[in-house]
Every structure is written in structure tokens, then in C-alpha cells.
């Protein structure tokens, strides 16, 4: 086995920039068209009546195609949360310390049976509690994409 140290050889770079053009799919297209208008859309399973947000095409427990669109209130409750003291460095994937801790939460949307992973702002990390009511803060300019939901905040 080689005992070469990293300094003994030049840097060999084999990276390629590769763009993937994913389709968001028919359901997320409808979801994003609605979020552009600051509306939150979920979809209901015709069998078990569970409502999914973001919408899923298939209810996995019923193995049924979801069909019934429903507009939801842009609010919910904290199902669970974590206070992030670090974040993932986009270049090398290591954890960097955050100057200010951030709150990441699973938010159960009112009237839905699933939860959205998002951040909670306008709140102190030690003030956040499970079951706390929160509401969506929409982006100042919506574009029909994931950034339309800017963040959640405690309901005023």
C-alpha cells in the first residue's frame, strides 16, 4: 500500500458539472402555480381521505391515485423541531458552525395529515415548543417554486 502523502502528487481533478433537468411533475406544477398566488394546495386520497401536502400522486398506504385537490389554510402546528447549531457546507459537505442557531421543524398543516419540513423564523430557538401554532410567511415576490414559502413563524 502506498505511503504517498497528499503533497507528493499534483491535484488530479476529475469533476464534471452536470445539470439534471428534473420535471417537477403534474402535481407539483399545480402546487407551485397555486403557491405563486400565495395559496397552499393539498390533495386527498379517495380511499382513506388522508390529505397530503406537498401533494403526492399516490397514497402509499392505500396504493391509490390521489385525486381531490383541496385548498388549505397557510398555517399549522409544530409536529417536531430541531435547533440547528451548524449547517452543511455546500462545497464539501462538512458541518460549519452557524453564527445564530436556526429552527428547522416538521409542520403539520391544519387540515392535512402530512407535515412539511421548513424553517421557523421570528422566534427564539429556546421559545419553540411542540404543538405551537405557526403560519406561513410568503415570499415578497413569489415565482411558482419552493422559495414561495419563505418561512413559518409563530402565529401572531
Amino acid at each position, binding site marked *: *500500500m*502506498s*505511503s504517498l502523502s497528499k503533497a507528493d502528487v499534483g491535484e488530479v481533478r476529475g469533476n464534471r458539472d452536470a445539470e*439534471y433537468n*428534473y420535471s*417537477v*411533475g403534474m402535481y*407539483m406544477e399545480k402546487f407551485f402555480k397555486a403557491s405563486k398566488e400565495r395559496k397552499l394546495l393539498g390533495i386527498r386520497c379517495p380511499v382513506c381521505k388522508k390529505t*397530503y401536502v*406537498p401533494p*403526492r400522486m399516490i397514497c*402509499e398506504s392505500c396504493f391509490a391515485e390521489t385525486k381531490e385537490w383541496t385548498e388549505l389554510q397557510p398555517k399549522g402546528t409544530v*409536529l*417536531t*423541531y*430541531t*435547533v*440547528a*447549531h*451548524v449547517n*452543511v*457546507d*455546500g*462545497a*464539501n*459537505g*462538512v*458541518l460549519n458552525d452557524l453564527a445564530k442557531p436556526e429552527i*428547522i*421543524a*416538521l409542520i*403539520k398543516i391544519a387540515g392535512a*395529515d*402530512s*407535515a*412539511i*419540513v*421548513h*424553517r421557523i423564523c421570528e422566534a427564539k430557538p429556546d421559545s419553540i415548543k*411542540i404543538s405551537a401554532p405557526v403560519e406561513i410567511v410568503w415570499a415578497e415576490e413569489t415565482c411558482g*417554486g*419552493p*422559495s414561495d414559502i419563505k418561512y413559518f413563524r409563530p402565529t401572531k
Partner: protein
Amino acid sequence: MSRRVAIVAYAQTKHEPDKDSTREFMIQEVATGALRMAGISKADVDTVVNASGDFLDGRTISNMKTVASSGAYLKDESKVEMDGAFAAFYAYTRILTGNHSVALVVGESMASCYPGYIPSILSLDTSFDRPNSFLHEISAAALQATYYMHKYGITESQLAKVAVKNLRNARMNPFALRSIQGISMSTILKSRMLYSPIRELCAYPFTDGACALVLAEESKVWQLTDKPVWIEGVGFCHDSYYLGERKLSECESVALAAKTAYKMAGVKDPKRDIDVFELHENFSYQELMFYEALGLCPKGKGGETLDARVTEVNGQLPVNPSGGALAANPVHATGLIRLCEVAMQIRGESGKHQLKKKVRTGLAHGQHGLCAQDNIVFILRGGAE
């Protein structure tokens, strides 16, 4: 079941944060090590199953390059892009078909080469969670840990205590990456807070390492070993991809995988029938949830079970005498290492971490995905019959 299959040989690398090696050397080291233990050569192997990850290896269909090092040149070879314990399952079923008698299973990864937590972000759904990028394996685990702790009153010191137990055990395991002298609750509780409640020492370490097993069909077994470790039961199960659609307070897919494995192996009461448990706990809280899912205690009693010290190395239900994944986690090899460690315990070859009691039956667990989305449970048994 007409045919029976046993683990007849094994090998693992010393697990390290930055090995002075390459993937090919790591694979060759464990492949040749396992074959040597079985007293056979590449020519005697009928099928090779690799476990590795394209995003971790940085190449598509990454096993195309590891054909040489896994001894698979001009052989029947394929790959599982999941935990290595699934590769062992695949090799097992290939032998059960009757078309193969001897299989070599290899799992590996090299965290010193891949970009840390980025591969787990790249596993997310591309239209919402990935662009938002709040979610990855640690933040997901932290969300589940908070939920579980809140529901059952599990404390942060109980999460730390799992790490103390496993990392103390790891001190006796020469293959472990983490070897921390004088480990105590304060060592764990003073380690860096990452995503509350998960601290650095309650999370797995980035690891370079590999593991290999040789499996053989009953008629071949006795030519290869006098200490076979029989695969008596196996089950696996997949939970939902989306965290927001899962029952976060329990590991239902572990419970269902165990139920299948127990039924197949004739395990009526895991507390009575199983002597050792090697679990793939990427985060300390998961070990407590696994106690519950495996039927070692009722729901919500994982913390109490830990406090009662039964899962310690000399307890009635020893869990992770090797130190588990908190001691070393070469992704795609970790579940395979659990099988290897149980086989070592049954054969009495664990050295300084060999249990004092007689080990006849053991449970090995592997997982993959955010918050253990995908789980596999094996029941292994020693003995001549």
C-alpha cells in the same frame, strides 16, 4: 426450506477516518481475508455481491471498477446500492436458488473521499425538500429524536448514555474508528451540539472501511469451516420516503422486519431466545427506538431498558458489544459488519469484546435512508446441526 446457508468466513478492515489506502485495496484486503479464512480461492466463488454507493464512490455503477478487487473478473457479479446486509440477503437468496454454492459479499465506502453530508441531501426529492435543503441525515434524525423524546419522556442524558455504552465497548474492538480513553457522560455531553438534541458523539463518525463475508450452501459448509454460523431467519421492510408522512415515534419497519425474521427462525421471545444484538444505530437515540421495535421492551421503554443496564456488554441482552455504528460507520458496509460481529461472537472469535456468556443465537440489523427508512434483520445461529 430445503437448502441451508451459513456464514463460513469473514473479514473487516480497521475502520479509520482517512485510510492510507484506496477503495480497491480495502475491497481486496477484506475479499482475500475472507477467502483465506475459508481456505478457498477466487476460483471457488460462484457469485460475488458488492454493496457500495455511486454518490459515495463518485462514479456511476461504481462496481464496474471494483470487479478486479472483489475477485469478480469473468464471474457472476452484481451490486446492491443499499446497506451491505441487503447484499448478504441477496447472496443468500442466490444460493437458495440452487444455482450457486459459495458467495462472496463485500461492502465498502470511503468517507474521506466523498463530500460529507451532501450525498444524503442528494437523496431527497428534487422538487421540494432538496431545493429547500433543510433536511439531511442529521437534521432528519434530530427531528425524530425530539419527537420520540417528547412523546416518551426520554432525556438527553439517556441519549448520551447510549454513546457512553457503545464507545466504551468500542475501546475493546480493534477495528473501531472511535477509541476514546476515559469516556464518560461529560465527554458526550460536552461534545459539539449539531442539531439539537444530537451532539457529535451521539452521531456516527465519517468512516473509511470495508467488510466481507463468505456464504456457503450446507453441502459445502463443512469443507470450509468447522464453525458455521447459520442464517436462520431474515426479514426486511421499507418505511415511507417522506419524513412528514411517517409515524415518527416508532420504527415500524424495524418491527415488521424483525417479525418476519423471528417467525422464520422460530424466535418466540427475543429476550429469551437471542444472546447478542448488533444494531446499526447511526444516532444514539435510534438504539433506544430499536429496543422497542425488536420487542426487547414495550413502546416508550427504551430509555428504562438502557437505565436497567441489561443492554450492556455483561447484561442479559447485550447490544453492540462491538461499539456499533457510533464506533464506525462505513456506509454500505455497516450492516455487513453487524453480521460479521455476530458471527465472531457465535464462533467465540471476538477477542477482547467476546461476551463472557455462551453465544448461540444473535441478531444483526442493517439500515439505510433518512431515520432508518429501510431495515433488515437477520437471526444467526451457531452449532453443528
